C-alpha cells in the first residue's frame, strides 16, 4: 500500500463531515447573498449616483493605499527579511509591529489613528492642516490595515528567494542598487504582485478604522463598505446590492491571482 492511498482512506470517514460543515459555513452566506439579491432592481440600485460615488471613492482610495503600501512596504519587507540576522529583541519588536494591525480590531486602529493624527493627537496637534474627515484619512486608515498583507507577502518571497544570485551579482561588480533593481526585485515580483492584490482587496473592504478615523461623508469619506452599512438601516435591498458588488470585486481579485504567485490561494 502506498503512503498516499493510506492517507486517503484514513481521511474519508472521519474528516468529511466537519470539512463539509466548514465549507458550508464559509460558502452558504455568500450563496444567501446571491439568492436574496434583488436581481430585478439591481441595475437601478447600482446605477444611483451615490453608489457610483462610493464605488469611485473606494476604488480610488484603495488604489492609492496600495501604491503607498508598495512604496513604503517593499523596503520594510526587505528590512524584515534581513532582520533574521539581528538579535532577538529588535527582531521580534519589528515583526510584532508589522503583524499587530493584522490581528487588531480595525476600530481600535481607527481610535489609535485619531489619537495620533487627530486635531488633538500626539502629532496632529502640530500639523497646520486637519486629517480626520478627509479622503487622505481614508487612505491612511486603509494603509494601516492593509499594508501588513503586502509586507508579509513580499517578505515571504524574499526569504524564499535564493540569495546566491544576489551574491553572484555583487561578486561580478554590480552595485547594491543594481542588485536590488535587477536581481532581488525581479526574483520577488510574484510576491509583490500577490501582496498588492491582497492589500488592495483588504483596503477595498476596510470599514472599522475608516468610519472611526475618517468618518462618513458621501463622496469624501463614505466608501462602499460604509455606504453598505448605512444603507442597511434604510433600504436593505440596496445594502444587499452593494454587498454583491463588493463580493464580486473581491472574487475578481482572487480569480486574478495566479497559483505561482500565492500557492494555496488558488486551485
Amino acid at each position: 500500500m502506498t503512503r498516499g492511498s493510506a492517507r486517503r482512506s484514513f481521511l474519508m470517514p472521519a474528516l468529511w463531515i466537519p470539512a463539509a460543515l466548514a465549507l458550508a459555513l464559509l460558502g452558504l452566506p455568500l450563496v444567501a447573498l446571491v439568492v436574496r439579491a434583488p436581481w430585478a432592481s439591481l441595475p437601478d440600485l447600482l446605477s444611483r449616483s451615490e453608489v457610483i460615488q462610493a464605488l469611485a471613492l473606494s476604488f480610488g482610495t484603495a488604489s492609492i493605499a496600495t501604491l503607498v503600501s508598495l512604496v513604503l512596504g517593499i523596503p520594510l519587507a526587505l528590512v524584515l527579511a534581513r532582520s533574521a540576522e539581528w538579535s532577538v529583541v529588535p527582531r521580534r519588536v519589528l515583526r510584532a509591529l508589522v503583524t499587530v494591525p493584522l490581528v487588531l480590531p480595525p476600530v481600535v486602529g481607527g481610535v489609535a489613528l485619531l489619537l495620533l493624527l487627530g486635531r488633538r493627537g500626539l502629532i496632529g496637534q502640530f500639523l497646520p492642516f486637519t486629517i480626520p474627515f478627509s479622503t487622505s484619512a481614508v487612505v491612511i486608515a486603509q494603509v494601516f490595515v492593509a499594508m501588513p498583507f503586502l509586507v508579509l507577502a513580499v517578505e515571504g518571497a524574499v526569504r524564499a528567494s535564493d540569495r546566491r544570485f544576489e551574491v553572484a551579482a555583487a561578486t561580478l561588480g554590480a552595485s547594491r542598487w543594481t542588485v536590488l533593481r535587477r536581481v532581488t526585485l525581479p526574483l520577488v515580483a510574484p510576491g509583490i504582485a500577490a501582496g498588492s492584490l491582497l492589500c488592495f482587496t483588504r483596503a477595498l473592504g476596510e470599514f472599522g478604522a475608516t468610519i472611526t478615523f475618517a468618518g462618513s461623508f458621501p463622496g469624501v469619506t463614505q466608501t462602499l463598505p460604509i455606504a453598505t452599512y448605512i444603507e442597511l438601516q434604510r433600504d436593505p435591498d440596496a445594502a444587499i446590492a452593494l454587498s454583491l458588488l463588493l463580493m464580486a470585486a473581491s472574487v475578481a481579485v482572487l480569480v486574478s491571482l495566479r497559483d505561482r504567485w500565492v500557492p494555496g490561494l488558488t486551485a
Partner: protein
Amino acid sequence: MKCLAVAAVLALTGCAAPGAEPPPELQGTLTVFAAASLTDVFDQLAHEFEADHPGLDVTVNYAGSTALAQQLVQGAPADVFAAASESAMDIVTDAGLTAHPVVFATNTIELAVPPSNPGRVDDLSDLERPELAVALCAPEVPCGEASQRVLDHAGVIPSVDTFEQDVRAVLTKVELGEVDAGLVYCTDVLASGNGVEGIEIPGAEEFETRYPIAATGTANRAAAAAFMNWVLSPAGKELLGDAGFGTP
C-alpha cells in the same frame, strides 16, 4: 426646560419593588435592545431591575435604533425593544413582531461643542461656517431625522464633515475635539459630564424625539412585561428624568 437635570442623586433603594404589585419570581435572561442615546440610563434601569429580581440576568444591547430594528426583523433574539424614534419602531411593528408600543420618554436636540468651545459656536447658524468641523447623525438614524427637522425649521444648511452612524459616535467626535460642533440629544450632553458643553437650541423642543418601548420576544414574556412596567413606573421615570429625558 426639559433638559435641566435634577442634579441631586436620588437614593433609589434597590429593594423597593418597581411595579405596583409584587411581581412573581422572574428567572432566566432578559435581552433588551435599546437606542444608543439610552446607553447610560438603561444601564442603571437594568442594574436596579436585576437587583429586584436576583434570578434574572438582564443584557442590554445598544446601537442605532434603525440598525437594531433591522436586526430584530432578521430574527435577533430580543425580549424588549426601546427605540429612539417611532419610525424605527414601525419597522418592527410592520414586520408583525410586536404590537402596541408605548412612548416612555422624550428627548431634545442640542448643540454640543468641546470644552472651551474652540470653534466659538453660539447657535445653530454657526454650523453653516465652512471652516468648522461639524458632525451630524446620518439621516437614516433617528437622531439624524430629528436634527434635520430642527435644521429645516431654523432654515440652516450646515456644512457637515461627517455623518455618524449613531448619536454616541457624534458625541465621541465632539469629546475628542475632532469636530467643533455636533448635534446630539440634550441627554448626551448631560451623560458626557464635563466632556462637552451643551448649547440649547431655541424652539428645538417643538421637535422632540419620542421613545417607544415594546415587547418583541416570546422567550421571556413575563420578564419583558415586568421590565416595561419598571421603565414606565414612577421610579423608572425618575431615573429617566435625572438623565435629562422628558416624559410624555
